């Protein structure tokens, strides 16, 4: 335990004093604040005519504004934080020749990787919490709505999901830092993963589903069973991407008016109208039920990544040369 703590404190210190961390967090903070500002001022006009708006405070995060909403911004760029914190965690020690010194100290070998992962996790938590609190503060001034207890709870769950999401990317990049000797290779591999999961997987989900359950576009009355199967396949493929997993979970938790993570199929204009007019917000419990599988899967893949890097690291030969 002492070994883990010693490594944890040293790594935490390194993270917070490193230039790249400061650069990255400043960048993300600035963009978030700009978005929050735009959304905040846009929201006033948007809600002017609504009689009794609910959960206005949370809209600060979900409202798309002119460009994109805060949650989709974090969904895209959050992974970068994880990657930047982890891509050189092990192979830098190797190339600086400090690894052989480290493993010859009386600590368990896994303390090294555990302490490093823990430090990254805590860094992510602190950074993300700080950003959310700052945005909330700015939002409070801009829209002048005090969040109720449920808003706060929903926000807390959102922060938790996000921390695990970013930690998943920390896990991926740490895994590459164990596998690849060169830091450039591991950084590139992690970024490649980010691009594949964030852009490619959602794009190919539809064609893949088409290939497995071909829906005849020419008929006006397609087989409903086939359509459902097609939709399920498309969803299963797109959920392969942690980003989809994360965006679905966070939009559901932050937007109480969303009752399902499924996108409705073949919705007519009247149905759409009735849904937007006559629905009530979902209680927090129910929202939680919906995102629970998402949350569990996120934690599971994070742990899986960490476990794989753990195994690889424990089996690697330590040679000084």
């Amino acid at each position, binding site marked *: 335990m002492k070994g883990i703590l010693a*490594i944890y404190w040293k790594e935490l210190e390194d993270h917070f004093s490193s230039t790249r961390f400061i650069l990255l967090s400043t960048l993300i903070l600035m963009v978030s604040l700009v978005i929050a500002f735009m959304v905040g001022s846009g929201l006033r006009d948007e809600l002017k005519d609504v009689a009794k708006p609910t959960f206005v405070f949370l809209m600060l995060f979900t409202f798309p504004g002119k460009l994109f909403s805060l949650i989709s911004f974090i969904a895209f760029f959050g992974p970068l934080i994880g990657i930047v914190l982890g891509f050189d965690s092990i192979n830098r020690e190797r190339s600086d020749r400090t690894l052989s*010194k480290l493993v*010859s*100290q009386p600590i368990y070998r896994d303390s090294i990787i555990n302490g490093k992962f823990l430090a990254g996790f805590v860094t992510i938590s602190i950074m993300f919490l700080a950003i959310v609190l700052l945005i909330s503060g700015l939002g409070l001034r801009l829209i002048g709505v005090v969040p109720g207890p449920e808003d706060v709870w929903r926000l807390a769950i959102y922060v938790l999901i996000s921390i695990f999401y970013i930690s998943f990317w920390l896990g991926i990049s740490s895994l590459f830092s164990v596998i690849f000797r060169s830091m450039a290779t591991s950084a590139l591999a992690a970024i490649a993963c980010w691009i594949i999961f964030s852009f490619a997987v959602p794009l190919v989900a539809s064609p893949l589903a088409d290939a497995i359950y071909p829906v005849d576009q020419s008929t006006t009355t397609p087989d409903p069973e086939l359509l459902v199967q097609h939709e399920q396949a498309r969803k299963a493929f797109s959920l392969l991407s942690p980003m989809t997993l994360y965006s679905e979970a966070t939009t559901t938790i932050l937007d109480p008016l969303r009752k399902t993570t499924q996108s409705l199929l073949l919705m007519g204009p009247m149905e759409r109208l009735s849904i937007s007019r006559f629905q009530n917000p979902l209680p927090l419990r129910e929202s939680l039920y919906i995102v629970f599988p998402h949350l569990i899967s996120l934690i599971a893949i994070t742990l899986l990544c960490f476990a794989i890097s753990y195994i690889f690291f424990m089996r690697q030969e330590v040679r000084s040369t």
Partner: protein
Amino acid sequence: MNGQIVIETQELTKVYGEQVAVNHLNLKINQGEVFGFLGPNGAGKTTTLLMLLGLSEPSSGKAWVCGFDPTREPLKVKRVVGYLPENVGFYEDMNAAQDLKYISRLNGIPDEISRRRIEELLRAVDLQAEPKKRVGDYSRGMRQRLGIAEVLLKEPQVVFLDEPTLGLDPDGSNQILEFIQSLSRDKKITVFFCSHLLDQVQKVSHRVGIMIKGHLVAAGRIEDLAKEKLGLGQERYTLEEIYMKYFKEGQS
């Protein structure tokens, strides 16, 4: 020397794929001894060290360091053994005191004790002059001295030094060699010293072992090896002559 054995190996063997890195090594080293471990590059010296530290698992055979089996109880071995790897690296942004503090935390030494120890060690290795200097700006000799300070921080019974004087100027390597001698003389620390700088080994070692292609071809006091290999009559001999004889035999 009180003759107590601190390092012992029995038929210790390490095989990497097809290649036998260490071949049935039998070795006994006494307490307080400076043991020079010689051999050409790739002879299996570092592999032996890694096995003795429990960092690498032997393919067969056994080893004991201070009564512990490094494969089974690596932590107990690492608590009493200090290891200075060849070309050791440092966290470049730290200064010497920060570096030593990190190492002492890894060793579980309480801060009150380590503070005093670090001060003493920095004086002992002559690094106290510029306390704020980054390790990244250190010269090679200073880095090597800092490495030795790191090793001594845990107050070890045995130290393993892998090429500690490689690439140092004569003055720098003399400083290190004198330090090695004082460890054995004043603190009764056993020094296991890998090198291929023969004149230096000759200067400080009580006994030497010569390893060629994974085989320990000779082990003993330098005078005895000289008698055996060069004949009795020879008055002046160097370790290099002995070594080259063994080396040529090993090659053929």
